């Protein structure tokens, strides 16, 4: 069952002015409930614009955006949609609202008008899910970038979201912080079946998704499993993107006449394949 559907979606910034810019251009896409979709694309290809549609932060210039069957243009349903879809943005600093961690996580549930005890329970649970209970009384500016991003995720979780849209959540982090955030997201996906839409510039992160969508000038240029997408090494390079190391190595080896199976994208797979290859040739 598809959770998010875009039908012929177009979005123009500054419509009708001389600096009009068509950031999304007739996009058709649907995203399944419970899936993990990565979105790749160059700077300015329209990824963030797309993400903001899922939550009704932007409305289509033309076309339709449906979330769980509800139209984002319908104001009555918009609040339902925002309850279901949580957003995490690129800059961890500009999305924390309150001056204390637990108050920030409580912000969403408070907006829903829940009872104080219920909010307390949800906040505690969300903080536990991202492993930040210890920091609940900290001020946000005392946390590291990775920790701030985890608080932002907790803030979305506390609203009982069924779907998380993450827009380059790791762009401002170091490798450890990046691994930390990705681990948290995967855990939520696997343990709670939360639908994930994950925008990133890091190919290794995209490789763990069920599905990869490539954006190019406001359109979906390619769409498939990471295996399919990363198999096309020259195509990816031509688009100014990259592939995970294992994909690149196996592609190069195959080109040089070493018979490895298709669709290798992770290190584990490559090691296994090479092991099999040496056993075979012995």
């Amino acid at each position, binding site marked *: 069952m598809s959770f998010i559907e875009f039908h012929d979606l177009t979005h123009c910034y500054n419509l009708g002015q001389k600096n009009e810019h068509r950031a999304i251009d007739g996009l058709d896409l649907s995203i399944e409930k419970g899936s993990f979709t990565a979105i790749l694309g*160059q*700077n*300015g290809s329209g990824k963030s614009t797309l993400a903001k549609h899922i939550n009704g932060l932007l409305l289509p210039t033309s076309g339709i955006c449906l979330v769980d069957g509800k139209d984002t243009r319908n104001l009555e349903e918009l609040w339902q949609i925002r309850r279901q879809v949580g957003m995490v943005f690129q800059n961890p600093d500009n999305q924390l609202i309150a001056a204390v961690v637990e108050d920030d996580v409580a912000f969403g549930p408070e907006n829903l008008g829940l009872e104080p005890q219920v909010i307390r329970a949800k906040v505690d649970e969300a903080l536990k899910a991202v492993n930040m209970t210890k920091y609940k009384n900290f001020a946000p500016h005392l946390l*590291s*970038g*990775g920790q701030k991003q985890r608080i932002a995720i907790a803030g979305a979780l506390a609203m009982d979201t069924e779907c998380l849209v993450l827009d380059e959540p790791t*762009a*401002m*982090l*170091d*490798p*450890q*912080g990046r691994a930390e955030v990705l681990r948290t997201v995967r855990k939520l996906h696997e343990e709670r079946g939360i639908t994930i839409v994950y925008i990133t*510039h890091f*190919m*290794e992160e995209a490789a763990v998704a069920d599905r990869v969508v490539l954006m190019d000038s406001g359109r979906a240029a390619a769409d498939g499993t990471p295996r399919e997408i990363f198999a096309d090494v020259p195509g990816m390079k031509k688009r*100014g*993107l*990259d592939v995970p*190391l*294992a994909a*690149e*190595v196996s592609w*190069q*080896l195959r080109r*040089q006449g*070493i018979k490895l199976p298709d669709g290798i994208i992770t*290190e584990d797979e*490559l*090691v296994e394949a*090479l*092991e099999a*290859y*040496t056993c075979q*040739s*012995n």
Partner: protein
Amino acid sequence: MSIELKQVSYTYMPKTPYEHKALDAVSFTLEEGSFTAIAGHTGSGKSTLVQHLNGLLHPENGQVLVDGTDLAASSKQGRKEAMAARNKVGMVFQYPEQQLFEETIAADIAFGPKNQGIEGKELEERIKESMELMGLAYDEFKDRSPFQLSGGQKRRVAIAGVLALHPKYLVLDEPTAGLDPLGREALIQTICKLHKKWKLTIVFVSHNMEDIARLADSVIIMNHGKMAIKAAPQEAFMQTELLQAAGLQEPAMLHLLHRLREAGIPVNDNAIELETGIKAIREALSDAE
């Protein structure tokens, strides 16, 4: 000629409950003409360290010598010399595009040289030269507003603003953060050119082990304010435990080769770059056959 750090220590907010020792007796020498990378976990003191190199922070203990001049000198004469020495070290901060403020690109780049008292023809020359160095055509860009550019272009303007100071040493704090793969590669190529053609001594902070391996001739690895390693990248990356303790991962290729070795494939596991790595794997495979 070189930048020399002698037992440098630095503490933030000393004598308060928030006291934090960010640097602890760090010593090393950056020779002229070298290309040095600095890596380490979040909060390991990289940015603090880098700010010592041009006297934005003064060590609490120890000394920073740029071409033999102490940056923290306190006598009147010494201060003047220190100022001149600081000017030899250009500094590009993280997300430098956020510090643009002038109405035109040329004016923004002129800010640094103007502060040094450079005017007229020479000023224009410098602007032109540094813009072309960063791949921005002078005539096309000079009168445009820096705020109309894309992220990658803005960053180039910001770096040009530092190059216009004619530094001998160029320090960059995570220059490629937030760029897409294409933009990242283009910027790295430019930095390489600055090193090779323009003979700048480069120091850069990076989290990307591949870039470090590819570009730097030595790497400094920081761990909780202490210098854990200073060595050639090849050597440094062999010390897997130390790397892990410093919160870093070895380069992906090296990791792959290690894994292959563990799996019983006798690869020569000291390659870091793609080509050499693939060659190593091929050799191992043909040996096995």
